């Protein structure tokens, strides 16, 4: 890889999420989320299933339209910062039986640079191979992707992101379902990226390793629970608030809305009130 280190410009946040609300149909997924993430750190997005973690990444990438609010990446809308950002989707989001090789997948990370109507050149291939080497997958470059283990597939995805040579990396559960070797490889990769001044924002599931792997944490459960350095933010109390009671009021309001929609009936105020009265507030 070309390893040009970035000088963090501390005054411009890597990501600024401002009053973001996202809903799929009538179901709110993110509710008024608002935070700023500094450049040059390893940042975990943590929260229970259905907390909107992946959606938050997708909103940052402009893959889902927010209902309200906006996202800025290095002080500008994402579409003007695309070439600064690398993305690692969830491994399960693609069909690994697709007829293609590991090398080919990594080359996809360079498509933005290859440009329209052109084929990847020899130098692109060389670079893709370097990225595979970087994650210890050089020998498997020609392997069909379904012949790779889960951990190896994840490393192919990381190599593709490396090929993007980005300043900010957004990763959706990079550690999910990988073997120990891959876990170590990913971790040392993250640390290397940080030492180069790059920023990594990763959705992370394993609470045990948050403090060990990351500098900063975003605790999310439909709305932002807390955000800050791991040492001060990743506390029992905050975790309790994130995982303990689900956001019962919001979740139930949404549920009610959805039910009413299903029945094609006007919203029933009484249902909403009854539900609110029953559950614990949090």
């Amino acid at each position: 890889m070309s390893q040009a280190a970035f000088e963090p410009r501390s005054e411009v946040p890597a990501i600024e999420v401002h009053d973001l609300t996202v809903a799929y149909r009538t179901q709110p997924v993110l509710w008024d989320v608002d935070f700023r993430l500094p450049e040059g750190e390893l940042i975990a997005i943590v929260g229970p299933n259905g907390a909107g973690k992946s959606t938050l990444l997708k909103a940052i990438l402009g893959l889902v339209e927010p209902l309200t609010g906006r996202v800025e990446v290095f002080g500008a809308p994402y579409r003007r910062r695309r070439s600064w950002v690398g993305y690692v989707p969830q491994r399960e989001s693609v069909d690994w039986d697709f007829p293609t090789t590991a090398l080919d997948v990594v080359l996809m990370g360079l498509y933005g640079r290859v440009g329209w109507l052109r084929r990847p050149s020899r130098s692109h291939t060389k670079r893709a191979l370097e990225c595979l080497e970087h994650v210890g997958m050089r020998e498997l470059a020609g392997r069909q992707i379904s012949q790779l283990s889960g951990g190896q597939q994840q490393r192919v995805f990381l190599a593709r992101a490396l090929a993007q040579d980005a300043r900010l990396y957004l990763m959706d559960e990079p550690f999910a379902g990988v073997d120990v070797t891959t876990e170590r490889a990913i971790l040392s990769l993250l640390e290397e990226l940080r030492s180069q001044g790059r920023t990594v924002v990763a959705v992370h599931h394993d609470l045990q390793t948050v403090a060990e792997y990351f500098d900063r944490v975003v605790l999310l459960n439909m709305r932002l629970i807390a955000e800050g350095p791991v040492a001060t933010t990743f506390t029992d109390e905050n975790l309790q608030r994130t995982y303990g009671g689900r956001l019962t009021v919001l979740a139930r309001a949404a549920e009610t809305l959805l039910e009413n929609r299903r029945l094609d009936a006007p919203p029933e105020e009484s249902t909403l009130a009854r539900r609110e009265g029953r559950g614990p507030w949090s």
Partner: protein
Amino acid sequence: MELTFTARNVLLGATLLGAVGGVLGSFALLRRQSLLGDALSHAALPGVCLAFLVTGSKDPLPLALGALGAGIAGSLTVLALVRWSRIKEDSAIGIVLSVFFGLGIVLLTHIQRLPGGNQTGLDKFLFGQAATLMERDLQVMAILGAAVMVLLGLFYKELKLITFDRAFAQSLGLPVRALEGLLTLLLVTVVVVGLQTVGVVLMVATLITPAAAARQWTDSLGWMLVLAGGVGAASGATGALASASVAHLPTGPVIVLVASAVLVVSLLAAPRRGLVRAWLRERGVEQRIRRENLLKDLYRTGEEARTDPYRLVPLPHLMGLRGQAFGALRATARRLERQGLLSSHDDTLSLTTEGFREAEAVVRKHRLWELYLTRRLELASDHVHRDAEAMEHALSDDDVARLEELLGHPETDPHGRPIPPAPRQPGGAPPSRGEATP
């Protein structure tokens, strides 16, 4: 074979359609849009009829444009239904297919009742009638087919990316919706190319069948496109020639049948993905498990008797251990005997030195795993045997070495029986023949 002018046209048209259909069908297959292809081809029918009603001519160009328009309308309807209603995509496709096709049939019936002789022959668009292909039809087909191929070539890498990883393509800023629209447009165009040859009803087979067959033989998208085009072209040509040489053989259906035959062979015989290979592999594993079990049973019998590890064990005794049939056991024993792992006398078996070594390895895996389960997972020792029965066939030598390391090179299993040492260790040599174990 001397080709008549008609036969030549049919041959050219069918080959062209097969090639274009196979290539584009590969994308439809990988995008799981086979059904969409079916809906779009059915949707083309009312377009053809309307174009005829408006222009009153059977010139291929307006008819093709009509089909194109109707196909596009069909695909947009699917999109709209999915987007604005709660109908899911498969149902939306079903609805569009039947509604458009129904409308097409109504129009077709109406047209056939019109006075005058010009309207006959439109029904060829239902099942295709390649023999009616004219020079002018071929020209239209060739132009459309070439356009499809060129566009596919130009946007190959982008189309590949949106097919494999849509979200990543979007994150790169590719206009994913537009590219998907392009693919659908190309699909509709191919349908138009095939209208006269195979008709709207069978069209989907020329898209999907060659692609599915090609997928069996390669793991590269590029080669898949080439193979699918080849299979399509070859079945097209075969179908055309068959119908030219045998009277009353319909071209379109024959093309589809030929492609299907290729698919069946591919599903069965392809080297890595084929069913035959999978079956053989499965059988191989089963036989290995049977062999390992037999070796282990012989070892255990010797161990329990605390006498000669190479003692002769009668087959009925072994049958009792796992409730195996005589014949199956006999066959496994024969195999092992051929490999020099055991010897047999009448209906009794005994391990050879080599066989003893193999048996030790299996028992080692079994007992190490049992120990691992009891120690690490704190399972009771009477609960671990069944699991170890399966794991002993699955653990690799590396796994075993690591397991042993982890457990601190134990000497006995949870039941107090000795764990045979690793083969290379000094104490690991098998006892010499005839010598009793302590």
